[in-house]
């Protein structure tokens, strides 16, 4: 793996590209960074590894000028610098790619890339030249992006590529990536890693923040582990193993299963590009084959935002008491499928039937009335009204239910009692029922939506991206709740771009490719590699042959 990264940085000078010495940062009594040392050489990938809250992001925000350190010093190329704002950081050639992308949704890729930079034609823009340069960079780094596409049409993976292009266009010397793989599919992660390797080869310094051992081991030149704001140690990737890193991260050795959970790995160790067989942690599927299917989708065709069909003749069935997982690279129609089932998006042909009731063309209210529970992908945009209170969002889909309204008047006492019990039952961490929902963490917002949907005792539960971007503890909680629903006999359909999640939760995995199901897999009988090939568009029989071929060589 490390063979592609030069052992020695290409243009070595005496001083490293970046040196941070004794960085200390306190927030209202909490020490987020305590005398942390960190340095980056040109041409290396230096990973920051640690649990949520270990101080990784804080350290990088100090570097990027969001926070002023209380103590410590930053040097670039050996000379001390003061970074008081992101503008200073950029002037020193530092770029940062955030978890939440900083793009103008209504502008094109080229406009986003050129935004804020002086044009080569003075006061006039020079779109031709910008696009041309973007094409050059896209080609050099294999970043497939159409410069003329408008950002809102792009998938998450594509948006991240635009962010990387922005940094490349600005010719940064040092690029910080804050958990860049959290939003990507396995294939996209591999693509990203290839791009990052090439950037390192070209002499750029990269800081890679992650809590996924596999990626850190596969990509890094060196790894620094933080715990509770302290630097535990820095070691070359060649000397690191999963066990060493996890032990450094948590401070003591863990039992293997717990280590897997703590590092976000539902799978076996060091499956770096996913060619080792899965350990098969999924619990045995209950015997559901005999029960009639609760959700039946036939020949469904759904138009996408760009005018072409996003879902093409798709069929699937989900029985009560099973979890079916839909895996696939983002942008293969998963979002449109979920929206069609929930009634938010119209299908153009095919049928959706829930427990014998025709749902094709139904609106979301009717789908809910028939027994669909739905947790949308964009939870802060679609799942809740961000400016509503916790109580109002818990009521959101039930405001006309007889239990909570009589003759159109809301029954305040019943509503508060119901909301209070949901907050307690689902462990939603909120100061009060009247707290604005936008101030809650992503994990708590997801728990709120789950609480609301599950309280209606759905017969079919559709969950899109159940744990994307939320912390490990909340994610584990949500997984438990989904398994609990399966045990209660609910038909659960999850759509997730996190293959580890799908493999650990689902009884059956359907892989979506270009709008239809290309193949089915069982987590206990299939490997990441087999599923990965299907996600890349290779049909199962072909996939088996390819896997066999690999195994024999």
């Amino acid at each position, binding site marked *: 793996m490390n063979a592609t990264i030069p052992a020695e940085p290409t243009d070595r000078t005496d001083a490293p590209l970046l040196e941070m010495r004794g960085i200390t940062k306190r*927030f*209202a009594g909490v020490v*987020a960074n305590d005398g942390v040392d960190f340095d980056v050489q040109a041409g290396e990938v230096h990973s920051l590894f640690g649990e*949520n*809250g270990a101080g990784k992001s*804080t350290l990088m925000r100090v570097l*990027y*000028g*969001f926070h002023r350190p209380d103590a410590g010093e930053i040097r670039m190329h050996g000379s001390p610098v003061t970074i008081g704002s*992101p*503008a200073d950081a*950029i002037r020193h050639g530092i*770029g*940062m790619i*955030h978890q*939440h992308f*900083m793009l*103008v*949704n209504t502008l094109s890729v080229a406009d*986003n890339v050129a*935004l*804020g930079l002086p044009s080569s034609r003075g006061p006039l823009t020079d779109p031709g030249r910008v696009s041309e340069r973007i094409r050059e960079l896209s080609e050099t780094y294999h970043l497939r992006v159409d410069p003329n596409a408008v950002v809102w049409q792009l998938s998450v993976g594509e948006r991240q590529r635009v962010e990387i292009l922005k940094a490349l266009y*600005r010719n940064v010397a040092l690029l910080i990536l*804050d958990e860049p793989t959290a939003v990507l599919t396995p294939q996209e992660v591999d693509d990203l890693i290839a791009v990052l390797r090439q950037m390192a080869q070209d002499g750029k310094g990269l800081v890679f923040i992650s809590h996924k051992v596999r990626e850190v081991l596969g990509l890094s030149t060196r790894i620094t582990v933080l715990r509770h704001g302290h630097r535990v140690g820095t070691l070359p990737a060649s000397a690191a193993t999963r066990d060493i890193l996890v032990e450094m991260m948590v401070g003591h050795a863990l039992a293997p299963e717990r280590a897997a959970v703590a590092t976000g790995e539902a799978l076996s160790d060091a499956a770096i590009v996913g060619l080792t067989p899965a350990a098969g942690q999924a619990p045995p599927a209950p015997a559901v084959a005999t029960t009639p299917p609760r959700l039946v989708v036939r020949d469904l065709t759904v138009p996408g935002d760009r005018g072409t069909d996003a879902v093409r003749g798709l069929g699937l069935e989900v029985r009560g008491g099973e979890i079916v997982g839909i895996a696939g690279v983002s942008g293969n129609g998963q979002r449109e499928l979920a929206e069609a089932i*929930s009634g938010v998006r119209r299908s153009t042909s095919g049928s959706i039937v829930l427990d014998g009731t025709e749902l094709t063309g139904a609106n*979301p*209210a*009717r*789908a*809910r009335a028939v027994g669909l529970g*739905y947790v*949308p992908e*964009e939870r*802060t*945009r*679609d*799942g*809740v*009204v*961000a400016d*509503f209170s916790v109580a*109002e969002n818990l*009521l*959101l*889909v039930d*405001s*006309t239910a007889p239990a*909570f*309204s009589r003759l*159109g*008047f*809301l029954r305040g006492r019943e509503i508060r009692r119901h909301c209070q019990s949901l907050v307690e039952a689902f462990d939603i961490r909120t100061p009060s029922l009247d707290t604005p929902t*936008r*101030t*809650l*963490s*992503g994990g708590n*917002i997801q728990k709120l939506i789950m609480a609301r949907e599950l309280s209606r005792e759905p017969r079919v539960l559709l969950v899109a991206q159940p744990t994307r*971007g939320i*912390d490990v503890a909340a994610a584990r909680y949500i997984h438990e709740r989904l398994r609990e629903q399966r045990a209660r006999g609910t038909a659960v359909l999850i759509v997730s771009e996190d293959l580890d999640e799908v493999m650990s939760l689902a009884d059956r995995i359907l892989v979506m490719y270009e709008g239809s199901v290309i193949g089915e897999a069982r987590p206990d009988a299939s490997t990441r590699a087999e599923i990965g090939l299907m996600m890349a568009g290779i049909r199962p029989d072909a996939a088996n042959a390819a896997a066999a071929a690999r195994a024999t060589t």
Partner: protein
Amino acid sequence: MRSGVDWRLLLFSWIALPAALVGALLVGAVMMAAFGADPINGYRALVQGAFGSSYALGATAVKAAPLLLVAVGICIAFRANVFNIGGEGQIAMGGLASAATALAFPNLPSVILIPLVLLAGAAGGAAWGAIPGAFKAYFNVNEILSTIMLNLVAVQLMNFLLAGPMVDKSAFSTGGLIPETRLLSPNSWLPILVPGTQLHLGVLVAVIVAFAVYFLLWRTSFGFRIRAVGLSIPAATYAGMPVKRTVTLAMTLSGAMCGLAGALLVFGSLSHRLVTDGSLTGFTGSAGFNGIVVALFGGLNPIYAIVSAFLFGGLVVGGNSLQVATGVPSDLVTTLIGLAVVFIVSLEYLRHRARSRALALAHVAPAGAGTPGTPPATLVDGGSA
């Protein structure tokens, strides 16, 4: 780590409105001084004229009532995220519908006729609000344009009706008809509540309606839907709410409030006629626009709007006393209202900036170098620190 910023936010939200008013009054004082008048004297006359006697208070309340109803209507529309700029037209339609009703049934007893003309006014305004509401909801027509254009249609309709079908044919002035209805049936006049003042039933109606709308917005499932749709159409859609119908109904209700204000302007007037001067403001006194200011000043809350309507009513009434006492044109009051708007908008901007900063510092910092103009849309979902 956000306590400092929160404190500043709190300060902004509590002092912003009084500060805007004080700022407007200070600039007004400078202008009075420029006219050669004594500002202290002028303001004393203004306060005296507006609030200094029971008669003044009554006049202020009567001026405030239509403003309050429009403001309440604006609250409903803005809470649904629809910008109803069509208050003027809706008032005119309400006035016409209610006057036509009184002309048609002059002999009904007061107990029936008064509720009937008020309902007719509300219905006229509702129709004029439903049109842009439905166009926005079903055809995505910009409501700011459609409501403004419907204002123009309303004024022409009013001119037409008061030149022909509804005009008082008995009163000939030199060479033509005065654009006004004949004296409306006394059975339709809004009764005076406190003898010796102008305080009429309409004031009470307006205050009751304000409380009712507050109740509607925060205690009914329909109000819940209006607010959900206003804050997030995607979330309301996913929750299965009838978004289009809700937007249409909110605008209809908003128009009904303005139409009711129009009825008050007819039956609570001293002339007890529907009178115009050919322009729209001749009848409405710009209540359709000033009501927006009142609503914003009241934080889009119908109950706070009661206070702010009374304040603005006082400004208008006191402006006449100001003119009498100092010789400064009462138009200064219009300037004061305009200044108050400028100050509110400015402070609102500062508050917004403080809030964005607070969010940015707490979560993700403002867009990096390349994107100074990036809207803070992505800042809402707090990432893990």
